[in-house]
């Protein structure tokens, strides 16, 4: 099970992560980041397979995927 966090101070609300996750873990939400745009919410994080495409394709480094193997 991975611990996925989205940093609201880095996120600019471009919504790339909503389309690149193969499991559809990121969903639209009404939560605002510090820029005032909508940032994604993390749902159903236990489905994460750890491909890290969201980390690689986030242009602002807001997403951090922490799997158990990292420690």
């Amino acid at each position, binding site marked *: 099970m991975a611990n996925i966090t989205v*940093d609201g*101070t*880095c996120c*600019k*609300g*471009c*919504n*790339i992560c*909503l*389309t*690149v996750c193969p499991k559809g873990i990121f969903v639209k939400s009404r939560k605002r980041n510090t*820029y005032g*745009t909508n940032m994604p919410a993390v749902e159903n994080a236990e489905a994460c397979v750890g491909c890290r*495409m969201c*980390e*690689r*394709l*986030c*242009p*602002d*480094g*807001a*997403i*951090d995927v922490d799997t158990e193997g990292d420690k």
Partner: protein
Amino acid sequence: MNKLYEKYIKKESLPTLFCPGCGNGIIQRAAMEAIEMNGCKEETACVSGIGCSSWIPCYLQLDVIHTMHGRALPFAEGLKLAQPDKKIMVFTGDGDCVAIGGNHLLHAAARNIDLTVVMVNNNIYGMTGGQKSPTTPLEAKTKTSPYGCIDMPMDACGLVMTLGASYVARWTTAHPVQLTRSIAEGMNHKGFAFIEVLSQCPVQAGKNVWGEKDPAKIMDLYKKYTYMTKTGEVDPAGARSASAIEGKLPIGVFRNDPDAPEYLEKVEAKLAECGIR
């Protein structure tokens, strides 16, 4: 914040000036990961010109020179000659590298000097408001080509290959794993490594070239309008059917020649031949 970002980014200069969804951030992350893979953070120095893409290294905790418009390559060549043990990365855009700095690109490629050039190609002049650049596709309506672009777009990879660059690759922001591997290979390569990255500009190119302002959809278009080639393939277009490549750009590592003579080695050999060193 991402763990890799915490290690490499200057936190006091955040946020970056890139628009939401800009491909520069993806390339920045790929460059960080390539440096991490090679374990050469202390030996790396970056040079950049002017343009949105040239701000990429300015947020990294590395030695950086932010130079004049189009003149990143001459500065980088000078730095390489003065500090031959450093790994020099050059971040430059399509307008910076092919338009105003085109002459410098030709000469750096012909010398085959040991640099890693990452050319961020967003098909338009993004920072100045959406004018036509040398790589704008045909029929694209921009601020300076309101009835559709009539100039053939330049192929920067083909250009440097004819001049003798020994590592040439083209990737898009939709292929981040391959891009990271290419940058890491280019940094270890002895000779001129030229990596062109097709990068989305959702604000200017999205409005003028693609007709689509969602960055994720432009990345899907990049996957749709490119086809994969193998390293060293002689005639990638001829080997495929006309319908499979129509209107598409080849991507992949086009050339990887580690035996090509490198400029600094030639300088040392000439000095030894003349009895100076």
